[in-house]
């Protein structure tokens, strides 16, 4: 659907079926309770069967609230359906809970089961230390072999159990390089073709960034990630890779040279998708906590509409950030269970971001002459923040349906987020976007409305402003390299949310081919991934409709029902 500056208000009017300017809900307390929700009704009926079978009470909201009188009776207000932005799919918020949507789960899995390693150095060891020849044919043999070992296949020892391929169908290995001649000489089944996956302009920039090096991308089976956590990915890839090298190049599995080779192959040029989290999170590498925010722009693959419109790609990034930082990290890893589940979804439903963005993009073009043209001055940051904040406040004041839809004052985060986008689009600088968001939350909207977010929410935004302008390791870092592991970012998701969004919005505004790593950008252009990173919201919508087929399912290993 075509989005204009009022699309989100029209959608609210359609879904609530009342005028968006009404301040009174005539049916309040009479909306039908839990039974107005198809999903909650389904949960209750399903849980009743579980409770009956196992003899232990289970999920039972009406009993808890209405009979025991100890909880809140759900559904006294209208539980509005929402439209997933960029799609025509309507769903309930229930369908966007990270634990209810297998597409969302697969998105997370596909990011963190990825192992990227440069195989230039092991090739150099094979040539210089062992005296072997490395040719397109030998590389193709290696790639066939590693596609066997990566899913638990044995190649050097006989007395080994192997894994059933069924749950590991998403385990495979591909390769890419910026050298067209080398890429063309390899078996195309294994190659991520930069020329095919990107526009000519971006392909040229990416090939320059990747250079002549040969990069291997291993997709460790989702089944393994879910059983053993992200820290296994490096080890898993190392084992599968070393076995494949040993087998395909007939190496000796014990001589001194193998230690040189093993280091070169497994560790020397390996890229993690995330560093380990701080101790209390008690997880290893490849956790969202250690994901540098610059990777968000690199992972999403949505078609750009620049130089005219930075919104489509920014909106895709926003959906991913909302899921990773708000729903997964804050909502589940920090809190868990009911956690923060509606709030993250508000960022990618009802075309709200697109509608607000449409106004701001016009305002930026009018004021600064185009996207990414504004100078990096205080005045720019302030003016962008003021316009984004005031325009949003005007909507909340005019349409009482909107603050109800942003129940719990998610509006505070929404206003800061759009301020971030505005400054990032105007300047093309992530720092401008992040500063605008912190400035908005700490000062502009706080003094305008005398409220911000949930308890202590703004406490990170005051120190964040000076800290994020530092590039020292223990203070800030360049914006693209920051993540939840930076201390002032970790307590609250919204702080992280703004930073990552400013990176996506600014790099899209600049029409960059990548933000932090051309390697990561190409690695996620792989069309064989179960989750479609070309259209994050479309995939999430499939999950909401229960039409998405996730990987790693154990159906072949369980009793037939």
């Amino acid at each position, binding site marked *: 659907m075509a989005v204009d500056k009022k699309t989100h208000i029209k959608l609210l009017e359609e879904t609530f079926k009342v005028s968006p300017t009404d301040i009174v809900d005539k049916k309040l307390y009479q909306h039908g309770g839990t039974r107005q929700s198809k999903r909650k009704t389904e949960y209750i009926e399903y849980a009743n069967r579980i409770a009956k079978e196992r003899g232990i009470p289970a999920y039972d909201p009406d009993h808890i609230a209405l009979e025991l009188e100890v909880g809140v009776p759900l559904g006294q207000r209208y539980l509005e359906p929402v439209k997933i932005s960029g799609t025509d799919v309507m769903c309930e918020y229930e369908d966007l809970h990270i634990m209810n949507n297998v597409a969302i789960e697969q998105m997370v899995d596909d990011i963190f089961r990825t192992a990227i390693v440069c195989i230039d150095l092991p090739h150099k060891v094979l040539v210089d230390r062992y005296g072997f020849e490395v040719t397109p044919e030998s590389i193709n043999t290696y790639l066939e072999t590693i596609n066997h070992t990566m899913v638990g296949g044995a190649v050097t020892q006989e007395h080994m159990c192997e894994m059933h391929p069924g749950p590991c169908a998403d385990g495979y290995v591909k390769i890419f390089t910026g050298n067209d001649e080398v890429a063309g000489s390899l078996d195309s089944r294994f190659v991520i073709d930069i020329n095919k996956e990107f526009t000519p302009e971006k392909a040229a920039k990416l090939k320059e960034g990747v250079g002549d090096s040969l990069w291997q991308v291993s997709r460790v089976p989702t089944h393994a990630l879910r059983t053993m956590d992200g820290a296994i990915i490096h080890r898993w890839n190392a084992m599968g890779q070393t076995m494949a090298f040993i087998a395909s190049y007939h190496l000796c599995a014990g001589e001194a040279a193998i230690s040189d080779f093993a280091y070169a192959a497994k560790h020397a040029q390996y890229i993690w998708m995330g560093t380990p989290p701080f101790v209390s999170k008690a997880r290893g590498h490849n956790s969202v906590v250690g994901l540098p925010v610059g990777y968000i722009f690199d992972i999403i693959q949505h078609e750009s509409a620049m130089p005219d419109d930075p919104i489509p790609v920014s909106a895709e990034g926003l959906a991913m950030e909302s899921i990773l930082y708000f729903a997964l990290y804050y909502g589940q890893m920090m809190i868990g269970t009911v956690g923060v589940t509606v709030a993250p979804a508000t960022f990618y439903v009802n075309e709200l971001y697109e509608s607000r963005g449409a106004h701001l993009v016009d305002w930026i073009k009018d004021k600064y002459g185009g996207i990414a043209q504004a100078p990096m001055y205080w005045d720019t940051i302030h003016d962008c923040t003021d316009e984004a904040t005031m325009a949003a406040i005007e909507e909340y004041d005019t349409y009482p349906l909107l*603050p109800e839809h942003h129940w*719990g004052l998610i509006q505070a985060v929404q206003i800061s987020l759009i301020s971030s986008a505005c400054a990032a689009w105007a300047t093309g600088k992530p720092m401008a976007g992040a500063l605008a968001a912190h*400035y908005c939350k700490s000062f502009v909207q706080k003094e305008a409305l005398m409220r911000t977010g949930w308890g202590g929410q703004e406490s990170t935004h005051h120190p964040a402003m*000076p*800290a994020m*302008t530092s590039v020292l390791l223990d203070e800030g870092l360049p914006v693209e390299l920051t993540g939840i592991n930076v201390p002032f970012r970790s307590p609250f998701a919204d702080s992280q949310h703004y930073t990552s969004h400013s990176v996506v919005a600014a790099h899209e505004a600049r029409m960059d081919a990548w933000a932090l790593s051309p390697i990561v950008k190409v690695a996620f252009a792989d069309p064989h991934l179960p989750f479609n990173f070309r259209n994050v919201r479309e995939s999430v919508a499939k999950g909401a409709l229960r039409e998405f087929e996730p990987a790693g399912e154990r159906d072949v290993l369980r009793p037939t029902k």
Partner: protein
Amino acid sequence: MREFQIPYPGDDPVANNRKKWMNSEFTPRKLREISDDDIVSLLGHRKPGTAYSSVHPPLDEMKEAADPIKELVVPTDGAKAGDRIRYIQFADSMHFAPLPPWMRFRMYGARLRGFDSLAYSGRTLLEMRERDLDETAKFLVETEIFDASRVAMRSVTVHGFSLRLDEDGLMFDARRRYVFNKETGEVEYVKTQRATPLDRRISVGKPLPEDELKTLTTRYHTALTSPRDADELIKVVKRVGELRVLGGLRPDLVDGR
């Protein structure tokens, strides 16, 4: 306590209302009378007429380590007696509750002693020694700080402040702690702030007329005093924001600004 006025930029109706609440000498209008016992019932921490619980002996009976701060700060009555710390929490509707959370927080800072508070998006917690709390809660509920339709006492299930109003103009409360009495035009609490049923209804009076709520408001609103027109406030926050970055990153750059 020493008299003081926390300064605030601007000279529009909202800025002037804010200044009023940040003046320690300002006396808000008393709008209703609620008995001490009813306040205790609404708080729900103990039954009316029962003794306060103590967490330590009276200060007079305690041997404390020498501390010059204790010589400077006069303890509150609740602290002297060793009362436990208890709370009252208000939810303030975004539809013209007199004091939104940060305004309420700042007002507490301007006129209360011996308290802890936290401003959330829609609610503000206030914790004090119990007898101090009883006295303060009475002040907070009896005066124009409290509007029967747009302010509510809620310790749990606090949401509702951003929702549309019910047909009687009351802020949504998923625990239905209060009802509108159509005969008297008053709002009556049927549950404590903790959502446990009361033995009898407690009236907190009539809601203020909409026009009066708009006159009292301490938030900028597009239809009244737009935040876009708060020039002096915007100028000040720009300066504070800029200096916060410079002061935190390179204090030397603040010189002369």
